[in-house]
């Protein structure tokens, strides 16, 4: 088909998309730039758009003055643990939601969706109490448990969408051949759906990696803090040190950006399927 887009529209499109890309990238550029400025040149007037000299001092002080390596390790363990368990559990519930019709299916979906709509802060106090009773306050394991519960509902719905794209006949054939449903799921469906499963895992990982309010409430000791909790400590003090702060922001953003870019096609598919199906 011949593209009959008039020239003025083409220009607008290129200009508009280009402008938005600049606007989107600018904050990222700015935080990178700040992180590489020499600490004494950060609060400087006039503002400089290119550092006078590149320095890694901000990163160094992050690992020397604060135990940032420990925070990163905590975030990494908590996020991978929670995302792994939640994705596995949601694989089962998503499978059921996709494959079976039963009377209360609508109720199950609503029960999952409702958890996304109630402000979670109502639960903070009771969770703290409950964790005190269970001895799980200030424990990374306790945090993992909550994060599993937090990510299960949406990943079930996301995985349900991916299951919908895999024909029933696949596991039915396997079951005729004598496999149980569980092993048909594991040996036949999972390999086909692997990209979707990885995308769900990454989505969960990033959500846990970014979570702030639960971890601020439940973690007290410095050695167990996740990155967002540590950053919250940085901004609560009256004088924010923007040098280390920007370095910390860069180190927090980069891993998740890489993961998202890697799986963006599948994450987008998973999210939009849920929305367009309703």
């Amino acid at each position, binding site marked *: 088909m011949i593209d009959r887009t008039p020239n003025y529209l083409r220009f607008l499109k290129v200009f508009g998309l280009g402008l938005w890309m600049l606007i989107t990238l600018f904050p990222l550029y700015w935080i990178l730039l700040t992180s590489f400025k020499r600490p004494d040149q950060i609060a400087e007037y006039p503002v400089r758009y290119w550092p006078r000299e590149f320095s890694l001092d901000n990163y160094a002080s992050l690992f020397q003055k604060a135990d940032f390596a420990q925070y990163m390790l905590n975030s990494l363990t908590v996020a991978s643990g929670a995302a792994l368990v939640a994705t596995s559990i949601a694989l089962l*519930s998503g499978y059921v939601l996709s494959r*079976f019709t*039963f*009377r209360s299916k609508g109720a199950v979906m609503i029960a999952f969706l409702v958890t996304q709509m109630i402000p979670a802060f109502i*639960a903070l106090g009771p969770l703290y109490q409950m964790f005190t009773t269970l001895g799980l306050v200030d424990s990374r394991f306790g945090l993992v448990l909550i994060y599993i519960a*937090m990510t*299960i509902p949406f990943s079930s719905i996301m995985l349900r969408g991916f299951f919908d794209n895999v024909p029933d006949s696949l596991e039915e054939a396997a079951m005729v051949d004598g496999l149980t449903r569980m092993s048909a799921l594991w040996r036949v469906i999972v390999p086909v759906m692997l990209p979707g499963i990885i995308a769900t895992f990454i989505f969960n990982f990033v959500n846990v990696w*970014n979570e702030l309010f639960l971890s601020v409430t439940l973690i007290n000791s410095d050695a167990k803090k996740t990155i967002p909790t540590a950053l919250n400590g940085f901004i609560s003090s009256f004088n924010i040190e923007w040098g280390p702060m920007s370095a910390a922001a860069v180190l927090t953003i980069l891993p998740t950006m890489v993961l998202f870019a890697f799986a963006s096609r599948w994450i987008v598919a998973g999210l939009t399927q849920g929305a367009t199906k309703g």
Partner: protein
Amino acid sequence: MMATPHKASRAIAASNRPRAHRPFTGRTAWTIVGFLAPAFLFVAIFTYYPLLVGGRMAFHQWSLWNLNETPFVGLGNFRTLIVDPLFTHTMLNSALWVIGSLIPQFVIGFLIALGLRKKFRFRGLYQAVVFYPWAVSGFLIGILFRWMFNSEFGVVNDLLMRTGIVDTPVPWLANPKLAFLAVIIANVWYGVAFFAIMILAALQSVPDELREAAAIDGAGRYRTLFQVVIPTIRSTLVLTVLLRVIWIFNFPDIIFAMTSGGPGNQTHIATTWMIQFTQQGQYGLASALGFIVVGVLTVFTGIYLALLSREGKS
């Protein structure tokens, strides 16, 4: 409204009735229950249970500083909130926060989706780049913008002064009105990618034949868009907007990081105010405010859907 896990699993077990094309055996029912059980167990223990306990707190005087005495106070917490001078202000702020963020997000997101509909070279790369804010937490976005809106060394003021738009630095986060504008700008920046993705997916679901047919019938570019394409994707747009209203209403992270509700509590929305109550240990008040939020959103959802279905019929 909220199904308890027990009820749900019992209902599932009870619903082993034959399906149209596949016999529904007792064994299948157990598969359903068994596969759903782990998910429900986690959500029940760590989400529903604390939410229910939290809901109870709304009707009790419940403060972290006096855990031995938590008397039932009926609607006392709600009254305390409503007579608080901050209440009306905060609720209006919440509305402004939702409307002021959502409309620009929607419009810009729609335009970007239109721009990305047709394939071009580097489109995949462009999408990956422009959608990166998705991978960043709202809290960090707030920190980034807090630094950019810094009144002394912030880049926003520097750009405004270099281009001659203002002569003296603007005290962005020190002035309540400007601070609220700043948090909305940050939120618009953050949320555009979401709408762009959702609308792009919807646009791509419109079959090309439909456009071509409209073109053959003599409809121009804009008429095709407004009279063919948009009506086709209407239900997706409606649902996306509804979910986003709820989500933005409940989204305190950016404000929390940029202003924490200040200066002088003037930039609070309902959920940042709730955070402040929980930080003060006032769980009863926080919970009551949570009830009000859920109530407002439920009423809004009802009205929104009712208006739309009536419009759909006429």
